[in-house]
């Protein structure tokens, strides 16, 4: 029975099926919002308002010819997409989208998720490296350079709510604002860290203005230049899921996860159902609303990412390194100090 449950968790919810489905929905949303901001209509024909377009794209890619360059390292070339997809899937399993204690939740899972979210960047670097094409090599080195720029500010930003909540467990950080009555104001306090995290996440996802590694007009497809067919489809899916996991992580640690309304009481006694809309609804309805709440917050984060994408030009690799070390890193340190000060005063 237990094994079946775990299998369901991994394969259906919050695992493979849910992550694939919801992340393609997020990609559709991103494309639609981006298109509307450019006075275009975006995907239109597959499903309602083109909602199935991302899935159609992936299916189409899966059916395409798969070409491996003769000079490339065959095995490593094929392994990299799978490695990065596995990493983001695993990271997604730790997100508390279902249960206060997600089935494999433990003290310190935040670190594990952050670590797993770094793997795709390395996989992308190695993918470019093993492709042996000048564009791939350029893209690969850019991936790595960019990694050094955004990773530290991202970690620092995510550290802030963890210190505030006094826990390394994502679900505990998520419910922290809702456990004590009137405690929701910790969310606005983390605003600077939230902004840093959004910018760093955009860089992690390699989207405008930080799409330097795969800048189409400069390095064609960056590390993915030589990829085609199934392998490219897997990378595409991985990118979608990375966006979902990243956005959901930010929603969990900064926006209070599945909680919605401020309410008091001890988290352990409240449990999942009570926690959500607690005394107001309870039961399955409360649970569902909690899930919807988290997904809405994730969608909000993706909406912010899309807006950022529409509003900027792509910056250069030297500019992103300078930007993140001159602004993002000091901002996150300042935020960290603010939180420490509050903690020392006993305000939190």
């Amino acid at each position, binding site marked *: 029975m237990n094994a079946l449950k775990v299998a369901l968790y991994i394969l259906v919810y919050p695992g493979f099926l849910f992550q694939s489905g919801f992340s393609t929905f997020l990609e559709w949303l991103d494309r639609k919002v981006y298109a509307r901001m*450019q006075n275009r209509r975006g995907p239109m024909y597959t499903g309602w308002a083109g909602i199935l377009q991302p899935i159609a794209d992936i299916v189409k890619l899966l059916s395409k010819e798969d070409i491996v360059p003769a000079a490339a390292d065959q095995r490593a070339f094929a392994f990299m997409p799978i490695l990065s997809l596995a990493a983001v899937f695993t990271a997604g399993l730790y997100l508390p989208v279902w249960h206060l204690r997600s089935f494999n939740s433990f003290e310190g899972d935040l670190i594990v998720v952050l670590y797993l979210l770094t793997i795709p960047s390395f996989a992308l670097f190695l993918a470019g490296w093993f492709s042996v094409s000048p564009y791939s090599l*350029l893209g690969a080195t850019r991936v790595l350079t960019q990694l050094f720029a955004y990773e530290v500010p991202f970690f620092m930003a995510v550290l802030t709510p963890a210190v505030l909540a006094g826990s390394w467990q994502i679900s505990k950080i998520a419910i922290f604002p809702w456990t004590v009555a009137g405690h929701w104001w910790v969310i606005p306090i983390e605003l600077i860290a939230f902004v840093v995290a959004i910018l760093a996440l955009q860089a992690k996802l390699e989207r405008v203005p930080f799409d330097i590694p795969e800048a189409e007009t400069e390095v064609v497809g960056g590390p993915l230049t030589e990829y085609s067919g199934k392998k490219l489809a897997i990378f595409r899916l991985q990118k979608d899921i990375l966006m979902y996991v990243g956005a959901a992580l930010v929603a969990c640690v900064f926006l209070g996860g599945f909680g919605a309304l401020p309410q008091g009481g001890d988290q352990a006694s409240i449990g999942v159902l009570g926690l959500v809309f607690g005394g107001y609804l309870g039961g399955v309805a409360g649970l569902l609303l909690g899930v919807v709440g988290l997904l809405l917050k994730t969608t909000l984060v993706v909406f912010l990412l899309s807006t950022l994408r529409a509003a*900027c030009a*792509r910056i*250069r690799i030297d500019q992103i390194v300078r930007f993140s070390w001159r602004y993002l890193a000091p901002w996150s340190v300042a935020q960290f100090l603010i939180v420490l000060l509050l903690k020392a005063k006993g305000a939190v």
Partner: protein
Amino acid sequence: MPETIHLPMGPQHPFLKEPAKFDFDIQGEEIVGARMQMGYNHRGIEKLCEDRNYYQCLFILERICGICSHSHTTAFVQATEKLLGLEVPKRGLYLRTLVCELERLHSHLLWLGVAAHEVGFDTLFMLVWRDREIVMEILEEISGNRVNYAINTIGGVRRDLTEEQRKKILAMLEPLLARTEYYAGIGTNEPSFVGRIRGVGRMSKERAIEKCAVGPFGRASGVDMDIRRDDPYGAYPDLEFKVITSDECDIYGRVLVRVFEIVESCKLVRQILENLPEGEIAVKKVMRRVPAGAAISRYEAPRGEDVHWVRGNGTEKPERVKVRAPTMANLEAATESVVGALVADIPIAIASIDPCFSCTDRTTVALNDRRRGRRLTTWAELRQHGIDWYRKNKGISF
């Protein structure tokens, strides 16, 4: 000292809208050497013109470029009119100039969109191209066509403008001017965009003059040269306009020059429409045979000075037509301006001259004839070889 890598870009590359080959030597991300190679787009238009009469040439020359199509026909008819000694009626000149300025407008708007796309600013690209449609609609209203207007003819223009059309176009100009001013603001102020273009692709004034840079590219390096003012043609002697120059000497300067030229062009179009003289639009009777002699015509195309040289020999067909498209003058300088920049700057630096490779492309082919051991094959030999080849391989007899 890092290793030097050879990075080929082209003939097929996402940043190129037309095929051309660029070879860069890079150390890390820095470019230490740049070369370019053309010849993927040669169509032999100059040669085609020699086989056609002057009116047919107009339609061929219109197709040199998909964007500055009017520039090439105007330059050609001006040269032909010089040979024929024609005096074009005032209204004809005004209408011709009107299309010139509208063409400059849509070409610069197109360029702004492309430049934004090259640095990943797709929102500006989409919005600018949306509003470029207004210009295209105006052009369609005037000429009936969106790209190859076919409005020029020797001795004037082919279509007149009615009073309603004139009013309608004036009304369409209002939102266009407002929006172009808004885009001018974005193109010169948006931090991430300006951060990408300021100080990149530098070309000093001295070097620009040495390399014969023309048009907005030259003007952005402080070369104060504009054929419309320096060697006026069409209705320009009667019109008032500013020549925009900039001392920035980089891509930012080129954006500045172009966006303010857009605004200036909007005003010029309005000025032309408001002062449109009455009268004929073309010379009624034009000789089919053009007297012997040669004439040169200079024209300020959106991309810079366009030069056409025409030699007539007393027949209906020109003996020689020579086209010097503005990209020809700018391409070398642009390739040079990339050296010292980063790989990320290549697309925008090359695009900053608004290149049009198909306008420029000329080929010189030196065939290596293995059988005869000679470097060159004569035309007769090549023709004979073709006939033999088809007879042998395809069974076609000529």
